[in-house]
């Protein structure tokens, strides 16, 4: 049984405020620290972490003395590691080419320690190097550990950090850990990992990352809901007919066959990204936009999600698997033909859910969520469909022309907000037509949004966990998913519904809505 109770940590001492910061756009920078990346030779480090840190350096958001230590098994020197990371920045940064002067300054603080994640002696070497760097770089014992390794190593690394006392430092210093998803693969494993990490780190120092929360458009859901008085009065069961959340990918599983076989769409996407979107759109206004008040409200939503009885899972869930088809004009193989995939695999590459949130605000309003690979296009969207007007004054033919009012919040790639409503077609007759009023971020703010990792790394350095997932939040989301999986396992099927690559999922997904008299949007 999961422990859903929440440990409230005592507040950390606020850093002394800097009067010179008043009025500047950058309100504060983090204290100098060493960021230790476990798995420094991996893809995440090259594609996301180092480019994000370099972009923060370009934006002058890193503290003077900021230091990175890569820790991995490969043979590297400081110089060779820096050289590889420079190549990575050139390839993956949103701002290229690399600015020589800024890179040279930043890379003076980049170091490498060779080590095996399970070898205790190697952590002694790491510890010595960190102490030396504190003296050279003025980093005051502040540490941010980043687990960029396969999850199999999480337990070992966290335990070694604890055994070598790397989770403690001098007074006023801090030691934090960032854990990448997947955070467990079911409720039991998530509970286990929570226990392991909380044995070594206080909950306030644990930052479980879901990069979706670092996206500007996801944060804008909070701004849109709580900065505008017009929406809140209608954001409830009185006015909302239903909500659709779609996170569609056009790509297949690429080279991740082995991983995906063990995971599937439910664990890979639904448990984290879609549940985060669900909580952002459904939560009550928090008392403050700080870590615990926001996460308290998100957790309440997850606890209010009506459990899906494993015996009735087919009424509320649809899974599917893509077969060969076309994507972006190219013929693509089916899932079972992909590398490292069992030719008889029953792993789902698509999942659709119908959820209810049993609270006063949302009682009776269905939330339809779907995610899948090899869908017609890459798109993420939340659509709030409002109830029709209670009594239409127009004749039936005219009224049929009208679509319901829909408020669509585009997450990616169309970042913006659109509202559909009916208007009169000019002319002598009362003809109606639905029109679309759109706001696009690009047209209002012609600036490049920071990458999600930039925002999240900076927040973690500042100790702000608002955009990170709390222990009880992870457990609550897994609780929902675990019941669904239990239901699927009861079904003992030897086939899974399929859909052709390049389509919006299996027919069962359409039936899930059709039986309620609704249809999926095509975002």
């Amino acid at each position, binding site marked *: 049984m999961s422990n859903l109770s929440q440990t409230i940590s005592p507040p950390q001492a606020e850093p002394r405020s800097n009067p010179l*910061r008043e009025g*500047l756009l950058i309100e504060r920078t983090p204290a*100098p620290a060493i960021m230790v990346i476990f798995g420094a030779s991996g893809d995440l480090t090259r594609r996301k972490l180092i480019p994000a840190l370099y972009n923060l350096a*370009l934006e002058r958001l890193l503290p003077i003395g900021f230091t990175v230590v890569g820790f991995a098994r490969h043979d590297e020197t400081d110089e060779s590691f820096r050289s590889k990371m420079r190549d990575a920045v050139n390839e993956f940064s949103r701002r290229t080419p690399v*600015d020589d*002067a800024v890179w040279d300054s930043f890379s003076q603080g980049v170091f490498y320690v060779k080590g095996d994640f399970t070898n205790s002696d190697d952590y002694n070497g790491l510890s010595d190097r960190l102490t030396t760097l504190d003296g050279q770089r003025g980093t005051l014992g502040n540490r941010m550990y980043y687990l960029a390794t396969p999850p199999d190593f999480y337990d070992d690394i966290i335990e070694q950090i604890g055994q070598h006392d790397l989770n403690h430092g001098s007074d006023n210093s801090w030691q934090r850990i960032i854990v990448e998803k997947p955070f467990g693969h079911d409720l039991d494993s998530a509970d286990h990992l929570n226990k392991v990490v909380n044995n070594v780190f206080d909950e306030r120092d644990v930052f479980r990352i879901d990069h979706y929360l670092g996206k500007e458009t996801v944060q804008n859901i909070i701004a849109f809901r709580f900065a505008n008085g017009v929406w809140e009065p209608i954001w409830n069961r009185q006015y909302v007919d239903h909500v659709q959340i779609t996170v569609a990918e056009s790509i297949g599983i690429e080279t991740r066959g082995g991983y995906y076989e063990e995971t599937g769409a439910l664990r890979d996407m639904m448990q984290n990204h879609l549940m985060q979107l669900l909580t952002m759109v459904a939560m009550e206004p928090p008392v403050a936009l700080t870590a615990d008040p926001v996460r308290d409200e998100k957790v309440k939503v997850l606890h209010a999600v009506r459990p899906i009885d494993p015996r009735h899972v087919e009424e509320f869930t649809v899974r599917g698997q893509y077969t060969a088809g076309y994507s972006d004009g190219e013929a693509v193989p089916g899932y079972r033909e992909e590398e490292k995939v069992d030719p008889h695999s029953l792993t789902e590459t698509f999942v659709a859910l119908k959820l209810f949130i049993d609270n006063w605000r949302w009682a009776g309003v269905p939330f339809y969520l779907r995610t899948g690979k090899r869908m017609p296009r890459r798109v993420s969207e939340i659509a709030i469909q409002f109830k029709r007007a209670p009594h239409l004054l127009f004749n039936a033919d005219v009224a049929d022309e009208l679509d319901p009012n829909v408020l669509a919040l585009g997450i990616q790639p169309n970042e913006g907000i659109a509202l559909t409503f009916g208007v009169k077609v000019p002319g002598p007759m009362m003809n109606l037509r639905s029109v679309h009023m759109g706001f696009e971020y*690009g047209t209002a703010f012609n600036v490049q949004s920071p990458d999600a990792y930039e925002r999240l790394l900076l927040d973690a350095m500042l100790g702000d966990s608002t955009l990170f997932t709390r222990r009880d939040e992870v457990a609550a989301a897994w609780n929902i998913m675990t019941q669904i999986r239990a239901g699927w396992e009861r079904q003992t099927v030897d086939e899974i519904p399929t859909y052709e690559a390049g389509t919006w999922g299996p027919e069962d997904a359409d039936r899930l809505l059709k039986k309620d008299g609704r249809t999926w949007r095509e975002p």
Partner: protein
Amino acid sequence: MSAPQTHRISISADGQRVVTIDQIVNELSRVWADISTEVEQQTGEIPIRTSILTLIIIARGESQIRVAHETLHELVEQLPSRVIVVEVSPEDSAFDASVAGHCRLHSGPRTPCYEVIELHTPPDRIKAVPSLLAQLELSGIPSAMWWVGQIDFEADEFKRLAATADRVIIDSSRFDSALDTFASFDSFLRHNDSLCSGTDLAWARIVRWREAIAQAFDHPETIELLPAIEAIEIGFDSTAEAQALLLLGWLASRLKWSLDSAQREGSTLHIRARNASGGPIDVHLLRQSSTGVGLRSIRILAREKERNARISVRVRAENILVTSVEWPGVPRQDRVDRLPAPRLSDLIGQELLVRSHDEQYHDALAFVVTVVAELGRSHEAAS
């Protein structure tokens, strides 16, 4: 990327009658109808106009008008706006207006669009302009007024035009004698505090310096020494005295310093101030013979008993800004940042992004005004 879609229609004044709002609004509607059709034909999308402010630009004479037009297109692509350019032309010119819509077609989904209304007026008709501006400003969103050149803050024309905007942006670096005008601008802002706020692009030019200095004091070791600053030296290019004074004004106002004395000796300003505890602070502002248009360096010494810190921010070749922090027990830490030569559009855009009432600027300006007054007194006493 294709060229902007621009439609320009001139509306002439009818004899002595001033161009009417209806004429301008009707022409604007026609322009957007044409542009919408054209963009839809080319891209299949209806262009979306988003405005986040009304920007009014006041430009006198050919060179200012040219600067205004060069800057506004760069600016509104960052901050989509309705732009109203008030072009004050020679005596014998006609009072007329023109409107234009612009949509820049990108390959992606973004098609930022904005509109420009030009009001061409001879000097004797400028009195009529505020009544037009009041109706042409978009309702419900802020308005900002950028004066491209020299301003007579005492003139009725300035007061009436400035009263139509929420924010006035000046550029004291374009003034014949910036220091002499600070007191007038400060006085204007004090008297109109509830109506509008103001800022100076000389202030915008030192943002990166303020950020670098503030960041050097973010460190737990150095922030403790903020009250213990005892000496400052600021080097600046010959045309950037206003920036140097505003930087000092910012430090002084944030740290609650008061002015003791100020005197000029050749190319150096010697200023003595006191911190909140009464401790003395020696400041030297050094005019350099360099040909740039900005600050060159700032060195700060803070000392308290056994602890001390030296902080410097300086320009290195090729637009590089180096921040150095030294305190006992740790080797000097340097950080290098790119300091690109700022375009006017970047400076204005940056100012429009900060909250409308810039208290820090007003406070810094107030300190500078006291320094300028003290310089005047010491000069009189010496002569």
